[in-house]
């Protein structure tokens, strides 16, 4: 299941074709590798593997 703290937004002032992964807890766009954790790709799981989610789990609406 995708991290509830993840949204996709357009990168400001950058000619990027598609919206990009943004962490509403960290309040920043996330790196490509971290986006795989946010999206629980492969065997990743944000509740286990993301330190940002773990620190903000009480803000998340799973």
């Amino acid at each position, binding site marked *: 299941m995708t991290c509830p703290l993840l949204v996709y937004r357009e990168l400001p002032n950058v000619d990027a074709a598609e*919206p*990009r992964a943004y962490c509403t807890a960290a309040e920043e766009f996330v790196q490509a*590798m*971290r986006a795989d954790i946010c999206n629980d790709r492969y065997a990743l799981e944000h509740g286990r593997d*993301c330190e940002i989610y773990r620190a903000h789990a009480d803000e998340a609406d799973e």
Partner: protein
Amino acid sequence: MSYEDFLADRPVIVTAALTGGVHGKEANPNVPETPDEIANAAAEAEAAGASVVHLHAREPNGERSFSTARFQEIADAVRARTDDVILQHSTGGTAAPDELRAQPLRTDPAPEMASLDMGPLNRYDRLTSENTRGLVDDLYDEMVERGIKPELEVFNNGHLNEVYGLLERRELDSPVYTTLIFGPGTLTRPTPQNFLTLVDDLPEDAAFNTLGFGRHQLPFATMGILFGGHVRVGLEDNVYYRRGQLAESNAQLVERVVAVARKLGREVASPSQARDMLGLDA
């Protein structure tokens, strides 16, 4: 390789690591991500003096891709836009399952080179890129089958043991080509003493490429040049030109290291010279 190699006037091979798979345009808007952007960056880097381009693949939103199809699209675009540059596909991929890691090797034609991560490294607070010996062997065997020269990525000095281990398990063609990596976290701590120790500890007749992350890119490239090694620069490893100033392009970073090499008396290898030095088929 050693200071003697510097004195012997051997040309330096410059690798441009154009995009990577960790950070992207959120870190520096000039990081190329699409096949078109990567191909343009490769052409500019080649014109600036790079003879090898190290390639990762990304989805249209900048996220990681390991698929053969996406690598094919990028490789085709790079080949169409460049003259003679050597393509080196990454097989790195923290947390990606083993079956995806070989996908970048399966383009047609195969890349002339591919990276091979020699062991585990930590990412963020809770991830480890495992790179087990079994995976290293599997990727190596597929590279041999496809005529691809492996670039052995030594993220720390324990990984040099892994290079020696691979040499015991497999018969590698000479020269064994390593990349010595310096920086934070699991990487070798970026000190000149550690650089010298690693260079001194390399297998006989091994060649080395020097990679410093972030602010260590320029000083470690310079040490690599002085000690007869080769160098890797680019936005995958460092998004800044100097403190507080984002790099404008991969080519800007290549131009700077080419100027340093020439100032220090080493010529920069053309792709053809790099092929000869690395034992690649023309």
